[in-house]
């Protein structure tokens, strides 16, 4: 049977996680409790973290840190995080957003995990604490690669927070989730783009996709063709041409891999051009 332990500090939770293979962190509950309710998770220990640091947001400065236990609703309530509101609002309905956390979203299986796509486009790092030591920052891309390799990313330790550099200009950050059902639906795909510009030209743009690979992925081909270019028709056309590089979408109940590939360039083009979906 399942037991539950409450941990007053992140270190305590990290220590238990590293020592007990049957221990599992529970934050908002939207992933773990479903597994409990449906009988996939019947043994082990659920760890609750009551440490306030787990729910802390430092969003005022250039370097942003959001605790892994911060909910989507808390993101939406934070004006300093306005550039992330579209991504936070893409997660579930209001009740889910009251519960679902940034940290949980990092573990959500495709085609879920749309908030992580936004973090990926922001070049976020994941703070992972293994054992009782202190946390270390891992590039989100590496973290996701580890998740894809190892199934549960939990083996890497306790995710305590995510960090990233705040976009200079919030309007440089774009996010769009394509779903069949409105206003709330599971992803056909999602796209996030951070497009900082200098002198009318894009500088090191970062673009990420959800549901186009087993885990959220960077669109390196798109980033390459956009880098150093003005965001004009020609650049958008080139981005659409490069859109599919590296994609490995799945066929699932929502859409086929074929369809995902067909519409990704379309939606990327519309997003970059500032057109409605």
């Amino acid at each position, binding site marked *: *049977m*399942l037991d539950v332990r409450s941990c007053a500090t992140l270190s305590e939770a990290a220590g238990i996680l590293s020592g007990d293979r049957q221990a599992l962190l529970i934050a908002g509950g939207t992933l773990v409790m479903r597994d*409990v*309710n*449906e*009988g996939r998770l*019947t*043994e082990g220990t659920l760890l609750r973290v009551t440490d306030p640091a787990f729910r802390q947001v430092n969003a005022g400065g250039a370097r942003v840190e959001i605790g892994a236990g911060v909910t989507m609703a808390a993101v939406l309530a934070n004006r300093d995080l306005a550039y992330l509101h579209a991504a936070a609002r893409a997660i579930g309905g209001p009740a889910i957003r009251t519960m679902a956390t940034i940290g949980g979203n990092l573990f959500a299986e495709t085609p879920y995990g749309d908030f992580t796509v936004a973090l990926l486009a922001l070049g976020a790092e994941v703070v992972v604490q293994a054992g009782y030591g202190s946390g270390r920052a891992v590039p989100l891309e590496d973290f996701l690669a580890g998740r894809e390799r190892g199934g549960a990313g939990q083996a890497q330790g306790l995710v305590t927070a995510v960090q990233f550099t705040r976009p200079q200009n919030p309007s440089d950050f774009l996010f769009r989730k394509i779903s069949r059902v409105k206003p709330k639906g599971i992803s056909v795909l999602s796209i996030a783009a951070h497009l900082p510009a200098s002198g009318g030209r894009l500088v090191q743009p970062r673009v990420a996709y959800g549901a186009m690979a087993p885990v959220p992925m960077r669109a390196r081909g798109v980033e390459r063709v956009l880098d150093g270019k003005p965001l004009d028709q020609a650049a958008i056309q080139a981005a659409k041409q490069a859109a599919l590089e590296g994609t490995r979408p799945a066929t699932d109940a929502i859409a086929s891999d074929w369809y995902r590939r067909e519409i990704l360039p379309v939606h990327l083009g519309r997003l970059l051009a500032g057109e409605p979906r």
Partner: protein
Amino acid sequence: MLEMRKEIFADERDDNLNVVGKGVQRQDMPGHVTARTRFFDDHAFDGLLHLKLVRSPHHHARIRSIDVSAAERAPGVKRVLRGADVPVNKNTLLSLINFGKDDEPTLAVDKVRYKGEPVVAILADSEAEALAARKLVRVEYDLLPTVFDVEEALKPGAPVVNETYPGNYFEYHQRFDHQKLRFGDVEAAFARADHVIEHRYQMSPIEHAPTETNGTIAAPDQNGRYLVHSCAQGLFFSLDTTAKIVNVPSNQLHFVGGTVGGGFGGKVDSLTEPLTVLGAMLTGRPVRYVLDREEEMLYGSPRGAERIYVKDGLMRDGRIVARYIRSYFDAGAYTRLSSYAAIKCTAHVPGPYSIPNVASDIYVAYTNRCPSTAMRGFGVTAVDFALECQMDRLAEAANMDPVEFRILNAYRDGDMKPHRRVAKNTALVECVQVAAEKANWPISEQARRASSLTGGGGERAQIPATPLDERGQIGRPDTRNGPATQTLPAGTTRIPLSKQPVFEGARDGKPAPVQVPRYEAPPRQNPPPYDPAIAPPSLQPAYQPAASAPPLPIPPAAPAQPQHGAVRFSSVFGTRRR
């Protein structure tokens, strides 16, 4: 937004009513908004056990062994049920009306025929304990070849899904692998039509997806009875099915329900009642068995898929002169209610249009998927999709506006329908006219003047001469393309008209208080006697012209039978229960 058009058909109604016709508040609404409405699961019982199923992970497999010993020892587990524990472990839903053979176990014994088929039931003190114990059940399977396509399933050599029906089709009238409809000569009409247009349509399976999943609570009551909180769409239908499977007299079961969180057809199969009652009987404890959402989605019996071929003969002036439909119901692994849908579908062909030559062959095919069942529009929704898409194509081929085309071909009062009954009380023309008007879809003066009350009958009331055939004899796929065997003369009917409805209660001799239902006088024809329960159809005269037929005698009452079930009468179609 709803608008009433009282002036249309006003002369056929008396609108001087007190409360009928008024938009007064629903009796159940205060309960709904205060959350006081009690659904089946909204009842507290002390000592409640929770039932969870082990289901087949395979689409088709032989069960080599089932080991429940570890599960039986697991914490909180009070009982583990296997097929052998089910008193009558073979049933078909329509056995209650003597239609079809028992073909479905409550818990699989020798093999599983679809992914998700129930194999073992676990009863424990909590859901969590039942779920944990579920992981401890060991079932070994030998995989069997599968078939998922309805037409593949009917080919010789296809894997046999359900041994009760070894040809993978439901058997109609102990003669055919499908239900026929024959009215006029479609082949001759195709030959002289200006266009012959044939297309294939595929209705998808649909999950009913009521927000309340299927479930039951059963509790031992006083006097050896069991109180059963049920979400069934047919209370006695479920009670009788349960009584048969757990093998108790029906009055040992006290079913309470009637307030259901959505059904749409998904709660007619008694998916949970029998096992829950059995669990309560064997443990002496109240038992709750509720499908979780994934079970409801994947194993809660969907609307069956249907594949429909429509072939039409069309004249340049837009008249449809022939329609032939070949349709396949995907029953999944067991019959449930598909056999009935095929009959209903046959009655619905060719849609609300007057077509002088119509034929159809409706098959029910077994495949290795979750058994399908009734859903909102059962037997009709899919055909309407096919027919109305086809109508759009025909209108285009005739170079006609789709609205004009519907009105031209619409059935009207007095038209003979292909199942050889006269259409009455029709209103398709008026619906099309009003919809076009509100949508601002311009139509011709002629179409605007059309009426359901005129233009029907006369020549359109005649039953044409009809070629018959013996295609699709049971066990003989080689006969599927056989020739016509004989021609029924024009005007022939064989089935007695329905008896007057029984409308009992007002025997006090008092004047009728308000309008009461009227039932139409039977038409003047006197069809010949026909009762396949007394004599199989093959022993009947091949045909009998209506004019020479004797008056219809009143059939004798069906003898009482000792089996379970609310309604008892002899088989009227299909294969009789064994």
